[in-house]
């Protein structure tokens, strides 16, 4: 599903360059649940952004569903994102003035799905994460765990191949974190690859495989 070959990425900081990723090779198979771990500054967020087509890389090769993605323009990247990828963020990133069901339906809006159909689908996905009764609520009326479940429903609605989660449990307490992880696991059982960036080892242990990053390189422990 995802193949990374010698991915390099550096950022300009004034006159000097910060080499964040120094040659990443990885292979994430269809239906795998993988955790990316590393301390802060290890490059794990950068890697996730590259995986999510939110950022470009300098050299190397990145194959998403056997398509080489390199130097995409924004329109193409947007299309690929909406076709293959679903995002879950640490800070949920729900649109504050939209209700739960509208938030979940939004990716379908950008795919050109009719309003009635996408709202019906959104309700279905809300039901899957157990929040059907909260459909008409605004994000500000929901708890952190509920918000994250809505974000997951939003990531799932476009029927992606891969879910990319950036510290999805970072803002949640332990019980809620475990609930959210259970949802990820059941998603994974349906054959969707899940990539979770985390620095919590108990969360990472729930995944099939852990990729450890240190100073821009994958290390084996």
């Amino acid at each position, binding site marked *: 599903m995802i193949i990374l070959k010698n991915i390099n990425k550096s950022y300009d900081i004034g006159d000097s360059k910060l080499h964040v990723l120094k040659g990443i090779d990885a292979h994430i198979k269809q239906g795998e649940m993988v955790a990316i771990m590393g301390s802060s500054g290890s490059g794990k967020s950068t890697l996730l*952004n590259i995986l999510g087509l*939110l*950022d470009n890389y300098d050299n190397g090769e990145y194959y998403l569903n056997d398509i080489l993605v390199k130097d995409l323009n924004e329109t193409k990247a*947007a299309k690929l*994102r909406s076709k293959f990828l679903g995002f879950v963020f640490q800070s949920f*990133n729900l*649109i504050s003035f939209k209700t739960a069901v509208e938030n979940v339906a939004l990716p379908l*809006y950008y795919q050109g799905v009719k*309003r009635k159909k996408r709202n019906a689908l959104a309700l279905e996905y809300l039901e899957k994460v157990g929040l059907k009764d909260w459909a008409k609520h605004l994000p500000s009326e929901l708890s952190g765990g509920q918000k994250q479940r809505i974000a997951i429903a939003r990531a799932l609605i476009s029927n992606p191949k891969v879910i990319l989660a950036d510290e999805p449990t970072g803002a949640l307490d332990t019980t809620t974190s475990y609930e959210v992880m259970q949802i990820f696991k059941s998603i994974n059982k349906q054959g969707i690859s899940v990539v979770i960036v985390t620095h919590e080892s108990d969360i990472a242990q729930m995944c099939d495989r852990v990729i450890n990053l240190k100073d821009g390189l994958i290390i084996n422990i």
Partner: protein
Amino acid sequence: MFDIDKWQEILSTIKKNKLRTFLTGFSVSWGIFMLILLLGSGKGLQNGVQDEFSGDAVNSIWVGGGQTSLAYNGLKPGRNIMFDNADFDAVEKNINNIENLSARLGVWSSSPINYKNEYGTFDLKAVHPNHKVIEKINILSGRFINNIDIEQYRKVAVIGIEAKNALFKDESPIGKYVIINGINFKIVGVFSDKRDRENRRLYLPISAIQRIFTGRDDVGIITMTSKSNDIDQSREIEANLRNLFSKRKTFAKDDERAIWISNNLEEFKDFMDLFKAINIFIWVIGVFTIIAGVVGVSNIMLVVVNERTKEIGIRKAIGATPWATISLIIQESIIITAVSGYIGLVLGVVVMEFVANNIPDSQFFKNPGVDISTAIYATIVLIIAGVVASYFPARKAARIKPIEALRHE
């Protein structure tokens, strides 16, 4: 571009930011409102003057005697020039391209004019039959003075509608007699004129007046219309008239004060040119006012984009293309400018109508208002304004990188 979903997207964001949207729209409304008010007032001025002109045929030329101001051929300045029947005939004979020719002699009445026990003081003018065309006299009943009246020195009169109302009330005046300076004149027609004051006037045949009242052959002023509305033709007539009279009355051709000539067509054209200039001026002011509004909209849309950076980033992360983002901003801007501009337009028209219905018509201000083409132009200006206003904000939105936006707090 116009799918319902996008409208719902925009409406929902506008609803979330009512005050901001209102303040933005207000500046545009105000700009359009002022533009409409200015254009309407300009139109009112123009209508007033146009109306003043439409009291007479637009192609009419008026000649009157004055006083010489230059010595000429051994004659001293200061001679009075007066026209008589011979001058009238000379104009008819020598000047080309004249369609209607008439003279107009003011008649002085020593006592009020009366019909039975009703008395009144009215303006009396002795004229030829063609005068009807020259002063655009509208016959309501009966007829105007005709050639037979002139030939037979008939004592007839055509009465203005207000004079008729004063003397005859509801009675029909045709065939009845009014007494002018002790002499009976038979009313043969009733007329109305666009100029109110001329409705208190009676027209009499000039031949009879010369014979009965003045005892001389003075004709007062000579009036005519040119054959076409061509300004060059009427200028030529003007020059020929000056030529003719300078010979007949022996005064210097360049003596401007010996006779006066009023060329309606020329004055009309001058006024129309003036109004064209005023109109352009108004549009310039209006457009600049709108530009101020547009800058406001643009400014606020920039703030909007800034405030919504994170939201736009989220949208991009879940699949919004740059174009989807740009069109969202552009459409929002167009909707705000168009709706608020339209409100300004309607308010402007309402105020204009209110003013039009509540101020008395004056000589120089009449029927202010905007016509449909002005409204259409204003609408086009608005939509363009909306696009222009959103250009920079939309560009900014399109450049937002989702990754940076998501970090944005």
